[in-house]
C-alpha cells in the first residue's frame, strides 16, 4: 500500500510519541519524515503532526517553550498559506494552544495526577461511530478557556471530541478541537495508539481514515490546481 500523502512529524527534544505516530502513518502507507525542531520550512508536507511527549521538558507549562522553536514559527506560515493539515496530539495539542493556533489552554488535571487509561469519547464528525475509545496519557489535559472563547468555539462548531466521563475536569468535556477553516486539529487522546489489532484497540483508525479522506481531497485539489497551471502530474 503506497500513498502520495506526505506526513511530517515535528520532533522537539523531549517528544516521545514520534515513533508511534510514524508507525500509524506508515500503516496507511503514507510517506513520513521526522522534522527536527530547528527546521524552517514545512511546505513539502501535506500534513504536519505535533506528537505527544514533553517538548523541551515542558518547563514553565506544557507546550510553553516549543512555541519559540523555528519549526513552530514555520508551522504558522504553513497554516497561513493554507498548505495542509495540522494535527496536534497530547503535547502537540498543548503546543497548538500555547501558540494560539487553537484557542484556550490545557492545565493540570483536577486530581493533580497523571492519568493513563482508555476513555470513551463522543465524536462530532461524520464517518465516526457515536462513541470511540482512545487512550489518554497526560498530567495537564484539563481544557480551559474563558466564557467568550467557549461560546465562540461552540458557535464555530469546533468541538471535535468530548469525554463521556470527564476524567480531568475539562470545560464542556472538551477532549479535542477542530478548526475546519484552518484545518487544525488538536486533541489530548492518542489515536495513534489505536491502530494495530495486536495492541487491542483499533478505534484510532476512524481518525486516520477520516484524515486520509480529507488529505486525498486536498491532494486532488492540489494536482488539479497544478494541472490547470499547465504542469504535468
Amino acid at each position, binding site marked *: 500500500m503506497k500513498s502520495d500523502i506526505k506526513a511530517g512529524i515535528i520532533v522537539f527534544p523531549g517528544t516521545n510519541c514520534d515513533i508511534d505516530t510514524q508507525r500509524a502513518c506508515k500503516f496507511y502507507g503514507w510517506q513520513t519524515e521526522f522534522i527536527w525542531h530547528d527546521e524552517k520550512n514545512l511546505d513539502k508536507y501535506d500534513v504536519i503532526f505535533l506528537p505527544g511527549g514533553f517538548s523541551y521538558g515542558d518547563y514553565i507549562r506544557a507546550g510553553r517553550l516549543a512555541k519559540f522553536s523555528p519549526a513552530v514559527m514555520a508551522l504558522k506560515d504553513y497554516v497561513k498559506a493554507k498548505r495542509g493539515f495540522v494535527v496536534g496530539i497530547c503535547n502537540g495539542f498543548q503546543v497548538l494552544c500555547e501558540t494560539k493556533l487553537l484557542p484556550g489552554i490545557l492545565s493540570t488535571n483536577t486530581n493533580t495526577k*497523571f492519568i*493513563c487509561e482508555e476513555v470513551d469519547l463522543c465524536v462530532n464528525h461524520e464517518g465516526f461511530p457515536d462513541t470511540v475509545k482512545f487512550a489518554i496519557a497526560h*498530567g495537564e489535559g484539563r481544557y480551559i478557556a474563558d466564557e467568550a472563547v467557549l461560546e465562540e468555539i461552540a458557535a464555530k462548531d469546533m468541538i471535535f471530541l468530548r469525554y463521556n466521563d470527564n476524567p480531568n475536569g475539562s470545560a464542556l468535556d472538551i477532549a479535542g478541537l477542530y478548526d475546519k477553516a484552518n484545518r487544525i486539529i488538536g486533541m489530548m487522546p492518542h489515536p*495513534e495508539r489505536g*491502530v494495530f489489532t495486536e495492541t487491542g484497540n483499533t478505534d484510532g483508525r476512524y481518525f486516520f481514515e477520516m484524515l486520509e479522506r480529507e488529505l486525498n481531497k486536498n491532494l486532488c485539489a492540489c494536482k488539479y490546481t497544478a494541472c490547470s497551471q499547465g504542469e504535468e502530474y
Partner: protein
Amino acid sequence: MQTIELYKALGLTDFEYEEIRKRIGREPNELETYLFSAMWSEHCGYKHSRKYLSLFPSGGAVSHGENAGGVRIGDHVVVFKVESHNHPSAVEPFQGAATGIGGIVRDILAIGARPVALLDSLKFGKITDNFSKHIFDGVVQGISHYGNCIGVPTVAGEVNFDESYGDSPLVNVMCAGVVHKDKIRSARAESGKIVIAVGSHTGRDGIHGASFASKELNENSKEDRPSVQVGDPFIKKVLIEATLEILALDEVQSCQDFGAAGLLSSSSEMAFKGECGIDLHLDKVHLREEGMQPWEIMLSESQERMLFIVEPEAAGKVLDIAAKYDIPASIIGKTTDSGRYRLFWHGEKAADLPPESLAESVKYTLNEQEPEYINQFRNKKLEETTAVEIAIGKIISNPNFASKKWIYRQYDHTVGTRTVLKPGEAGAAGIWLHEENGVVGLTIDSSPRQVFLNPYEGGRVSIWEACRNLISGGFEPMGMTNCLNYGNPEKDEVAYQFIKSVEGLARACKEAGIPVVSGNVSFYNESPQRRVYPTPSIGIVGYMDSPDKAVKSSFKPDETLILIGKDIDNNSNIGGSLYHRALYDFIGGEIDTVDPQLEESLKQIIFNLRDQKLLGGCIDVSEGGLFGAVFEGIKNGNTGFVGSLINISDKEKALFGEITGRYVISTKEFEKTQEILRSKQIPYRKLGYCRDNKLEFDGYTFDPAQLYYLYDRSIDLEMNE
C-alpha cells in the same frame, strides 16, 4: 587527613586496607583511597554476595556479565535487568524513585538497546502508617514523572505493604530493551581508542551514593540526603536518542553508563573487562561547579551521563551528534596498552593502579548456621478464626490484594504502542515485539514471607511464582533477573537468609530451565528497630510467537471454572499466606514446596488448551488463595460465580490458603477440557460457573457489585483521606 585515618572514615576495614596495600605493593595515596572506598563498597564491589551469586546458571543468556543481560528471540535480543534504589527512596521518595529509573534505563541503553518497558517492585510499611503513605505516594509520583517523560511505558509491577518495610521501603525497578543481535555493544574496551563523556555536567551530587547504599538506615539518614541524586527525565529522553544515534556508528566500540560511583566505576570496569589500560584527564571533564577535586569528579553520581570508547577518527562524529541534541560532551582520555588505570590532573599523574585491583574487591564468606528464629516461626500455630463473610471483606480491601489501579493509572502504560497485555489484564504484561511478530511477557514478583520462613524453599517458591505469572498469560519463561534485598549481611541471621535463598533461587532456575541474565544485590535494608523480610524480587521475561496466543486473567459469563494442579487438604502447608498477615498479623508455619514436574505439566496443559481454543481465561493461584483467583477472574470479566470453593473443614484455609502449583482456568467447553485433563493425568476440580451479578458458594451469598467496589476503591480511599 592521613590516608590511614581517611580509609576508616570512608568505611574501609583494616583488613581491606591491608589487602589493598598488598595488591598494589604500597600505600594508596589520598585519591586512590577514595577510589577503593567506592569500588570496594558493597554496592559496587558485591563483596558479601559475589561468592554466592556464581551459583546462578547463566547458560543461554546473551551478554551476561555486561551492564544487562538478555535472551535471544529470532534476530533480536531482549535485554533486561532490575536494580534497587531503596536507600535514596527512603529519604527522598520522589527523586529516589525517579533516579532509580534513570539508572536502570542507562544500563539497558549501554547495551545499545532501545528501552521498551519498565516494571517495578515496591515494598512499603503499612498503608495506614503516615510515613509509609508519604513514601508510597512520593515513589509512585517519582516513577510516574520520570517514566512518563522518557516515553517508556510502565507495564507491570507489584506492591506490598507490610510492617517489615516500615523503616526500609524497597524500590526495585526493572527495564527491558530490544536490540538487533548484531548491534549489541559491550563494556569491553580495547587499547588505542578515545574516551568521551557525553551528558550532563558533573556536579557534587550523589557523591558517596554507593557507600550510602551500603549501610543501615537510621535517624541520621536524612543527613545523607545530599547523597541522593536529582534526575532530569527531559535530559534523559534526549540522552536516550543521542546515545542510540551514537551507538549506530560502527566506530563506536563500547559504552558504559555512569551509575554507582560514576566515572570511576564506568571507566575502571571498561579497562578491567577489556584487559587494557586507560588514561583519564580529569581537568577535561565538563563540570557544573568550580573547585571540584579529582576525587569528587571520580565519585560524582550526577545523573544522565554516558561514557563512550570510540575510534580516534570518529570522535568528531560523536561530538557532532551530542551538539545536535544540545548535550555537552568532552574528550577526557584514551585507552592504552599499559594495563594501568591512570588519572591525571592538569597534566600530573594523580593515581596509577591496576584495573583489577579496583574491579575485583575482596570476597567474604558468610555464616551458614541456621538461625533460631526459623524453628520458632515454623512451629507457630494459628489458633484464631474469622467468619467467612468478614474475612472476605478484609482480604478484598487489603491493599496487598486490592486493585492497583490507583498506581498504574498514574503510569503511561501504552506509550510505544507495544502494550498487548496491560496492567491488571493478565498474570504478566505483554509487549509486542513487532520486529519478530511475537509478544514478550514481563513480570516482577516476590514471595518474601515464604523466604523468611524457609529461605531455601522460599527461594524456589519465588521463582515458580513468577514463572506461573507468565505461564498464565500464555508465555514460555525465557530468562530471569533479580534484585536481592536483605538486611545487614554481617549479621548471621541475614547471612543465612541470603545464602540459602540464593541456593533455592539457583536450583529453581535450573529446574525451570531459565538462565539468570543479570542481577543486583541490596543489603543493609534495616534500622535498629526493623529489618526487611529477605526479599528477592524476581523479574522473568517470557515469549509467545503470536499476539493471538495471549491469555487474559478474566472469566466470561457462562464459562466453567476449573482448578488445575495441587488441591489443598488438611495437611497442606500454607505458611506465609497473605490471609495470616492480613487477618491476624501472623506469620508462621511450614511453607509448601514446589513440585517442578507438576509445574512443567501444568504449563504444557495450559498451552495445549489454549492452542485448541478451549481456554477462556487463566489465573495462577497466589495471594488470596483460591478465592482470590476466582474473585479476580470474575471481576476482570465483569461477571459472577456460582459453585463450590470449600473442600475441607478449615474454611479459611480452603479459601485463602496459599500453596504452589495451581491455576484456575475457565472454559466454555467443559467436557472436552475435562477429557484432555484426564488423558494427561492432570489433577483438577470443577469449581462452578460464571453467572452475572451473583457470587454464591457453599451456602454463602455476596453482592458482587459491593465487593467489586471495595476492591476497586480501597487504595484510592486510603490515599485520598
